[in-house]
């Protein structure tokens, strides 16, 4: 019976709709790199995310109590969403600089990501657009548990957004971020990001 209850509780916890505020979710997630401490231009002003992040529990390996799962998914989801905002959809457009796009990344990884900025941020379009409309943002978090604690997380994500301005595109960013817990927060130490862009669907254009 308790197992069923746990399952129900877990089921309820599986879908965590994180209505995140762009300004309120990144205070402890600054990248290790001093250059990452600056926020993306325009991110200092509070604004409600257009489409909230949907974070769910994926595969859990090892022992991890339901409460810890929920905590981990919430925090990991917040970390990923902070990157979504800082690198892809947040800030004022047109945006010339991608500085501050990799909060939550380890120092060395942020340097690699900066090198790959055309794929780890919106650098390809940011300077030619006036507006971004988020269509979807989801993350499914696989967790590794040991001694009833989460010791690693793999965030499989999908971010879809439309751009407006000189470049009108529907951009889809998918992939995987791998994180480990560091001093009460989570740090991204690996990324595998795929980006594709196409014309904005006709139904969207009509809106």
């Amino acid at each position, binding site marked *: 019976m308790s197992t069923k209850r746990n399952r129900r509780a877990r089921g309820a916890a599986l879908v965590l709709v994180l209505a995140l505020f762009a300004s309120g979710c990144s205070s402890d997630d600054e990248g290790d790199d001093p250059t990452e401490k600056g926020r993306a231009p325009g991110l200092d002003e509070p604004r409600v995310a257009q489409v909230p992040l949907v974070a769910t529990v994926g595969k859990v390996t*090892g022992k991890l109590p339901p409460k810890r799962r929920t905590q981990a998914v919430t925090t990991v989801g917040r970390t990923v969403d902070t990157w979504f905002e800082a690198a892809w959809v947040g800030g004022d457009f047109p945006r010339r600089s991608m500085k501050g796009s990799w909060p939550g990344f380890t120092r060395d*990884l942020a340097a690699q990501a900066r090198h790959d900025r055309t*794929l780890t941020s919106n650098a390809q379009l940011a300077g030619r657009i006036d507006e971004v409309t988020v269509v979807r943002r989801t993350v499914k978090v696989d967790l590794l548990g040991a001694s009833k604690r989460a*010791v*690693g997380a793999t965030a499989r994500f999908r971010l879809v957004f439309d751009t407006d301005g000189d470049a009108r595109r529907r951009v889809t960013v998918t992939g995987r971020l791998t994180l480990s817990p560091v001093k009460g927060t989570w740090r991204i130490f*690996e990324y595998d990001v795929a980006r*594709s862009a*196409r014309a904005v669907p*006709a139904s969207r254009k009509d809106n």
Partner: protein
Amino acid sequence: MRRLLSRTALAAVLSATLLLVPNSSVSQTDATLVKVQRAQGVDLSPDVVWILALGSDARPGQNVLRSRADAIQLVGINSRTGAATAIGMPRDSWVSIPGHGSNRINAALYFGGPQLMAETVKGLTGVEPDYVMVASFMGLRNMVTAIGGITVNSRHAFSDPYLRPQGFKVGKQHLGGLGALAFSRVRKSLPRGDFDRSANQQETLQAIHRQVKARQDQPGFLDKGTLAVMQHMDARVPPKELFRIARAVAAVRSDRITHCVVNGSIGNIGGASVVLPYVDQARRYGNDARKDAVISHC
């Protein structure tokens, strides 16, 4: 020792390229051809990590950290470039063991545990391991079983009346945990004995890498492998560190793997047959690979 040598790691022998299935889609209304672009990166400080992978001959009930090392592979991983290399050392290599004179290299584990083993390997290759990983026979067997077996490409047909009576054929063959263990242990029926066995151990590592590569996109697969390491091996590295190591190893690119075996001549010391390793060659491998985990040629 330089860093975490006091901590003995049973780090994952998981190697793979991170491959993401391109998420291409074609809009029905726009009929646009979508080109998916990808970027990958992993941070495991330092960029190049050296893991001394040991196969212990400890029997059930014996201490794997104070037995003799049957398999000795020094594995380097470059998390920035995705390169990896392995330097194999025949277990009968006659070397200097700090504080214990000269002896077979595999005795260093028995005399002084993983730390002395690492110091001894450093003396031969010039490369100081960051981690030492010790797997018992059962540990390797269970690890291979946990990932669904491996496919090895054998260069020789060979067998062993006890470990593998049916033998191994030349070419590709799928092995379970027990088969992988035999493939890595059999020596006598191989043309070059200990040298070929060391090469087979490297083939086993590479086969594990291929298997991981084939399945790594399955959610939880790498975590399962990491958990298997924690359960079946004597891991003295914090789990979250093991998790990071496993990911870095998994990021190794299959086209950037190099491996060599330290050769030597056969000698006789005190009536026992030993390998007199070519120290210059071992040093050359170490110097070549130290900074980038690449051996230019064997």
